[in-house]
């Protein structure tokens, strides 16, 4: 209820104020038209008295101010025209000071001051100095801010800048700078004081009101940046230090945030680069509540864009040691602001990393350094539970992947795994999927066992159960998706050199064996086929590679394969294992390794006998056995007979008669092999056939 009344009242007061201005304006115009200076002064003073109100919010006050401003413009034209009112500007300057109340007096003084400067009867710097000091008499925040804003506006084009008409003996750029700096300083003080004035108000409302006025203060910085004569020297020696002094000393978080932002936006990037140390030195001195990371990110963004704008700029970055300075500054801020939550620190590092990636993408040591600093911070804090912080860490880890499009680079960053160590199991998996997707997307090939080892360590959340999270707890669909991703990944691990490739296979095996029964059916097959491809490659090479360690041979690989497939028995996954054994048998056959092939067949049969119980599964499996056996040419008569006999026997024992027939018929091909050895054992064939058809 109160608030609604308040708004209504404000509207009423504003209306009253406007009415007052319009009323006096009417008489003012009449006075001006009749060149009556005294009347003009009287009515303009009355008009300006409306601005003495304390009852309006900044928003409404502004409306009132604008009306007065319009009237003052016309008044200024009148003042300028000495012939009309017959008063010298010097006298006028003195005359207006007789106005009763201070606020109207000062508005009039500023207006005359403008004319005075234009007349060149006095040095600009003297008039400006006088005005900026006189304005001190108004200490009420809103009134003072608007008054000084008026001063800033009318003085804008009259500053003694280089090349301006107001530059003269004694009048220099420094005078212009001093004037603006002083106005700025006083305005900031008033602005900060706003929160202490008047009855206790709700903080949000107050902040909102203060925000509405911030551009009045910020405008001064804009003016400073526009002064031609303000070169790097002056900026470095005078402007920046004094602005920063005010920013730090005012100890007001709203002001500090806005003004730091302003400085960064308004002055050229080149200046920032050259004054980096000074600028960054202010940050630790700011109030703890200031959202430094946003401001720093802004700065780093701008500098990144600046670096990207032209190649010539880059050496400058190196020369001023931009990265080192930024890195130190961030470190100091984090140290100084003990209360800063982890998410704040991490997002600062994300910004720094982005900067390093954009500006110094060839400096992997910088990237690693940022990651290292992050690790240090994470080590000092309890395990990450904050969702936002986790997201930031993932962003930190993803950035290098996206920049370099090449997992290899990420794998060389020594601190990368350390950062990942600090992720909880769930997030580790998310990050692991990101890594795999990056590899798949850019079709990267991971080519050494060492890199594979590092990679599988990074994605260990997918490879095995860590930290007590069980695979059981996971949604089945999600689990399948994860494991299928790992399976796909295996195909991206490759090296032309057989020795290295074998090492890669062994490394993968080492990791996946820790995966447990749920994961093996997904991870074993791709590894098996990867190994079989290697066998085929070795077949093509003639002779053994002499020297050093035992070279990669098909025999060795088959040994390995036997062990790998055996692990599936723990799952248990007999049908899959059976198929894989048969694949190996065929491969061994192609290498002419009879005993090895025979051994694989034996394993397959054992599984068939003992584990494959389902009748449909049996039918498929026996056909696979028969089909594979039919292609074998490495077997001597005895071995072939044994296996054929077994296959035929099992075929006859299938559950359904039609299946029996088909299988036994298929077995007939085992006796009739069309190759150079010409095994066409018609007699045996007939015997078996007849035997099974009784």
């Amino acid at each position, binding site marked *: 209820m109160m608030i609604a009344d308040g708004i209504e009242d404000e509207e009423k007061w504003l209306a009253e104020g406007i009415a007052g201005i319009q009323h006096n304006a009417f008489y003012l115009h009449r006075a001006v038209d009749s060149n009556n200076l005294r009347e003009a002064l009287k009515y303009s003073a009355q008009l300006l008295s409306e601005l003495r109100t304390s009852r309006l919010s900044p928003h409404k006050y502004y409306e009132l101010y604008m009306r007065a401003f319009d009237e003052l413009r016309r008044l200024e034209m009148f003042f300028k025209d000495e012939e009309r009112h017959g008063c010298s500007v010097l006298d006028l300057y003195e005359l207006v000071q007789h106005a009763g109340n201070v606020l109207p007096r000062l508005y009039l003084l500023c207006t005359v001051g403008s004319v005075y400067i234009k007349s060149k009867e006095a040095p600009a710097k003297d008039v400006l100095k006088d005005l900026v000091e006189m304005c001190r008499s108004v200490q009420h925040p809103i009134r003072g801010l608007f008054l000084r804003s008026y001063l800033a506006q009318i003085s804008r084009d009259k500053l003694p800048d280089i090349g301006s008409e107001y530059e003269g003996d004694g009048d220099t750029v420094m005078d212009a700078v001093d004037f603006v700096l002083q106005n700025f300083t006083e305005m900031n003080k008033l602005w900060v004081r706003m929160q202490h004035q008047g009855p206790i108000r709700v903080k949000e409302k107050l902040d909102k009101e203060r925000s509405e006025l911030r551009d009045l203060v910020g405008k001064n910085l804009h003016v400073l940046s526009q002064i031609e004569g303000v070169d790097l020297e002056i900026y470095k020696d005078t402007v920046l230090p004094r602005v920063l002094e005010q920013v730090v000393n005012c100890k007001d978080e709203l002001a500090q945030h806005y003004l730091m932002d302003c400085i960064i936006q308004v002055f050229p990037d080149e200046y920032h680069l050259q004054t980096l140390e000074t600028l960054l030195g202010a940050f630790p001195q700011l109030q703890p509540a200031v959202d430094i990371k946003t401001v720093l990110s802004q700065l780093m963004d701008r500098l990144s864009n600046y670096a990207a704008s032209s190649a010539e700029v880059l050496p400058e970055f190196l020369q001023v040691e931009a990265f080192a300075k930024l890195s130190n500054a961030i470190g100091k801020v984090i140290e100084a602001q003990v209360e800063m939550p982890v998410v704040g620190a991490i997002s600062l590092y994300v910004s720094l990393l982005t900067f390093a990636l954009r500006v110094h993408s060839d400096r992997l040591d910088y990237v690693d350094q940022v990651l290292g600093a992050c690790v240090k911070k994470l080590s000092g804090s309890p395990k990450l539970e904050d969702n936002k912080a986790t997201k930031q860490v993932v962003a930190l880890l993803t950035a290098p992947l996206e920049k370099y499009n090449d997992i290899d680079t990420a794998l060389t960053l020594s601190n990368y795994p350390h950062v990942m160590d600090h992720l909880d199991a769930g997030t580790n998996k998310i990050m692991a999927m990101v890594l795999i997707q990056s590899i798949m997307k850019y079709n990267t090939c991971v080519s050494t066992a060492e890199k594979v080892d590092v990679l599988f360590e990074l994605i260990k959340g997918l490879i095995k159960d860590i930290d007590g999270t069980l695979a059981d707890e996971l949604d089945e669909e999600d689990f*399948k998706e994860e494991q299928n991703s790992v399976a796909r*990944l295996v195909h991206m691990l490759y090296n032309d050199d057989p020795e290295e490739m074998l090492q890669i296979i062994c490394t993968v095996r080492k990791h996946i064996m820790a995966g447990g029964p749920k994961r093996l059916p997904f991870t074993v097959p791709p590894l098996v086929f990867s190994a079989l491809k290697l066998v085929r490659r070795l077949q093509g090479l003639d002779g053994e590679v002499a020297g050093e360690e035992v070279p990669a041979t098909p025999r060795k690989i088959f040994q390995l394969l036997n062990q790998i497939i055996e692990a599936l028995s723990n799952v248990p996954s007999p049908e899959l294992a059976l198929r894989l054994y048969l694949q190996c048998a065929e491969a061994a056959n192609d290498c002419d390794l009879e005993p090895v092939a025979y051994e694989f067949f034996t394993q397959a049969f054992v599984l068939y006998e003992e584990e494959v119980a389902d009748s449909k599964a049996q039918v498929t499996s026996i056909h696979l056995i028969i089909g594979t056996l039919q292609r074998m040419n490495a077997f001597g008569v005895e071995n072939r007979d044994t296996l054929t006999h077994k296959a035929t026997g099992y075929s006859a024992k299938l559950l359904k008669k039609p299946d029996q027939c088909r299988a036994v018929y298929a077995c007939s091909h085992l006796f009739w092999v069309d190759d150079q050895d010409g095994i066409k054992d018609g007699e045996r064939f007939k015997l078996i056939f007849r035997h099974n058809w009784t």
Partner: protein
Amino acid sequence: MVLVLAIGDLHVPYRAPDLPAKFKSMLVPGKIQHIICTGNLCIKEVHDYLKNLCPSLHITRGEYDEDAQYPETKTLTIGQFKLGLCHGHQVVPWGDLDSLAMLQRQLDVDILVTGHTHQFKAYKHEAGVVINPGSATGAYSSITYDVNPSFVLMDIDGLRVVVYVYELIDGEVKVDKIDFKKTGTATSHSAH
């Protein structure tokens, strides 16, 4: 004019990570009327991908397929042609033309599509045509060395079917085509 995609033996993810990029960019939804798949996809993701390409999806079971519910064989009629589909591991000796011809007669189809060997084949045989689209991913096969990724697109128009085979050889997609005409009981063909 009915376009039928014959594809199979992708073996994702156990023998291959994915379809080749060049194939993926060629296969877009809305262009194909039917897909017949010989099997060994192996996972649901591939099924969904194919389903998205064309809702009329026919699959037979390969020995590594995750979904055990796919049938061993399937027949369907498209236009004037009867098509038969089977993975092929059931037919011993694998890839043997005569044995496949037996299956064709058994299913009573004009066109038999099978896989398993990962090697593209298309030939006329007695009463019909036998097609093997090969492996769309170029997956490892114990039967065939140096598998090039391949698939087949059949354009069925009245009594004529044009079989386009797409093969990825050394990074380039090569296309070949074979014409078959159905005349009464017999099918004649002209190869290019």
